[in-house]
C-alpha cells in the first residue's frame, strides 16, 4: 500500500507545473465519501484549457464521481461528502458559498444515456436558453438553436422535424441533441460521462469527430471505458484505480510508456 502511494507521488513530481492561465480546472487534495465509504483518495490534477482530458480506469474507480464534482452534480446525493479544493477560474467551487447554478452554467455535462426531454427537439433547446437568458428575444433564440444544432453536426439531419418529439430520433442523434442543448448555455468546460457507451460505432465516430472539433472553443473532460476511444481523441489522460489517480500525463506518454504495472495491466486488458 505504502509503495503504491509513493509511486503515485513520484509520477506527479514528473509533471511540469502548468501556468495558471492555461489551467481550466485545478484539483487539490480531493477526498470524497459516499456515507462512510471513501471513493476518492487525495486526488491532485490540473486540467488544461482547450484540450481533451480523458479519465480511464476500471468500473467503480471514482472517475465519474470526480467528473460530477466539477458541476456539483453530487449535491443531489445526500450521503456525498467532499474535502479538498477544486478551482475553476481561481474560484473554489466546492465551498458552500459557491452557487451550484452559476457553476453549472459554466460547466456543461452530457450523460451516459441520452436524456433528451420528452418534448420537441425545438423545445429541448429552447428551455435552457430561456432559463439562462430570461430577456432574450425570439429571433435570437432561433438563431442560437440553429447555430448550436450546426455545432453539434445535427442540423441537417433534424431541420425538417425540429418540432417533432426528441424521443423519435436515434440514440446517437439524441446524444448530439444533448450536446447541442448543453452548448446553448455557453459553458466553458464540457463534461462527458461515457457519452458513447450506449451508441453504435457510427454514432460514436460522429461524436468523437465532434469532440475533437469543439475543443478549440471549450475544454473537454471525458470519462470513458473505451481505451481505444481515449487513444483516438484524448490529449491528456488520467488513469484511476480504486479511487486514486495512479498515473496521468499526455496521451502519448500514458499509452506508449506506461510507468506503472497497474496501467500496463489495464491497457493490456488484464484488469
Amino acid at each position, binding site marked *: 500500500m505504502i509503495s503504491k502511494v509513493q509511486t503515485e507521488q513520484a509520477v506527479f513530481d514528473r509533471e511540469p507545473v502548468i501556468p495558471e492561465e492555461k489551467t481550466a480546472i485545478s484539483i487539490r487534495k480531493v477526498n470524497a465519501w459516499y456515507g462512510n465509504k471513501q471513493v476518492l483518495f487525495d486526488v491532485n490534477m490540473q486540467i488544461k484549457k482547450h484540450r481533451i482530458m480523458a479519465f480511464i480506469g476500471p468500473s467503480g474507480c471514482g472517475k465519474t464521481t470526480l467528473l460530477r464534482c466539477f458541476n456539483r*452534480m453530487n449535491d443531489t446525493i445526500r450521503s456525498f461528502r467532499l474535502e479538498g479544493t477544486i478551482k475553476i477560474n481561481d474560484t473554489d467551487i466546492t465551498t458552500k458559498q459557491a452557487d451550484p*447554478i452559476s457553476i453549472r452554467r459554466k460547466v456543461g455535462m452530457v450523460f451516459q444515456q441520452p436524456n433528451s*426531454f420528452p418534448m420537441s427537439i425545438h423545445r429541448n433547446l429552447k*428551455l*435552457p436558453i430561456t432559463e439562462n437568458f430570461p430577456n432574450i428575444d425570439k429571433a435570437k433564440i432561433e438563431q442560437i438553436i440553429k447555430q448550436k444544432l450546426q455545432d453539434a453536426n445535427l442540423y441537417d439531419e433534424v431541420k425538417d422535424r425540429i418540432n417533432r418529439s426528441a*424521443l423519435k430520433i436515434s440514440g446517437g442523434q439524441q446524444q448530439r441533441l444533448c450536446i447541442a442543448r448543453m452548448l446553448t448555455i455557453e459553458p466553458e468546460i464540457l463534461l462527458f460521462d461515457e457519452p458513447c457507451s450506449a451508441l453504435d460505432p457510427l454514432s460514436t465516430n460522429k461524436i468523437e469527430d465532434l469532440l475533437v472539433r469543439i475543443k478549440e472553443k471549450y475544454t473537454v473532460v471525458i470519462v470513458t471505458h473505451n481505451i481505444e476511444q481515449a487513444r483516438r481523441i484524448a490529449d491528456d489522460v488520467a488513469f484511476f484505480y480504486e479511487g486514486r489517480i495512479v498515473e496521468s500525463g499526455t496521451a502519448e506518454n500514458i499509452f506508449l510508456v506506461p510507468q506503472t504495472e497497474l496501467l500496463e495491466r489495464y491497457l493490456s486488458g488484464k484488469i
Partner: protein
Amino acid sequence: MNKIRDSLQQSFAWLSALITIVACFSIIVFLFLKGYKAISFEFLTTNPNPTFQAQEAGGILSPMAGTFLITIIGILIALPWAIATAIYLSEYAKKNLITSYLKIAIDVLSGVPTIVIAIFGVALFTMPAFGFLSSMIEGIEGANKAFGKSFFVCSMGMAVMVLPYVIKTCEEAVKAVPVSYREASLALGASKRSTITKVVLPSAKRGIITAVILGMGRIIGDTAIVWLLLGGSIRMTGPQPWWHFANWLDTLKNTGSTLTTYIFFNSPAGEGNKAELAFGASIVLIIIIILLNTVADFIGSRGAVKEE
C-alpha cells in the same frame, strides 16, 4: 397428480375471472333492459319535476348539469392541492416523522367513508362564517346558522374526498419521471423550481391527466356527499332559469341534484315511484363512467408506449 392440481387451479382462476365479467355485464344488461325506454332526446334535455305523475316528471338535464358542476369544481379545487402535495412528497420531503405522518394521514383519508366526510362538511359549512358559500337560514328566530348545502359546499366535500386518490396517482406520475431528466435539467443550470415546473411536471402530464379522470369518476359516482351537502331537492333551487349567465353565482350557491341523487329520488327504493326513470338515469351515469375509464386507459397506455 401435479397435472390435475394445475388444471384445477387454472379452471378456478378462469371461473373467478368469468364471475367478475358476468357480474359486470349483467348489471349493464339489466340496466339497459329496465331503462332503455326512458331514454329519449326529451329525457336528456328537460329539467325534472318533483311529481308523482310519470307524464310530468321531465328529464335529467339539471341533474346532469349538477353532476358536471360538482365534478369540475371539485377537481379544480383538488388538483392544485394534490399536485403541490405530490411534489412535496416526491421532491422535497425528507424521511422524517412529519413526512410519515403526512403519508399516514393521506392513507387514513382515503379510508374515511364518504358519509363521514359529508357529515363533517355539514358541521363545518353550517357555521355562520361560511354562509357566503351557501345561504343564511332566514325566518327562524334565534337561528344564526348557514344553510350549509350548495354546489360550492358539495364540491369542496368532493375535493376532500378525492384528494388522497389524486395525490397518490400524481405522486406516482411524478416519481415515474426518470432521474435522468432531472439531472439533465439541473446540469443545464436550471434551478430546482424550474426543473420541477418545466421538466418534471410536463413529463408527468399523462399521469396527472389520468389522476384527474380517476378523481372525476369518483366524484360522479358519489351519493353520500351530494345527499348531505347538496340537499334533498330534485330541482335547481336558485333563481330560474338556472342556466342563465346572470344567475350562475346564485345557482352555485343554491342546491340541486346530481344523477346519483336523481336516481335515489325516483327509485322506489329511495323515495320515488318512477323506477324506469331511475334506470334511465343509471344508464346515462354508467355510460359517462365507462367513457371516462376508457379515456383514462387510452391515455395510460399511450403514456406507456412513449416511455419505452
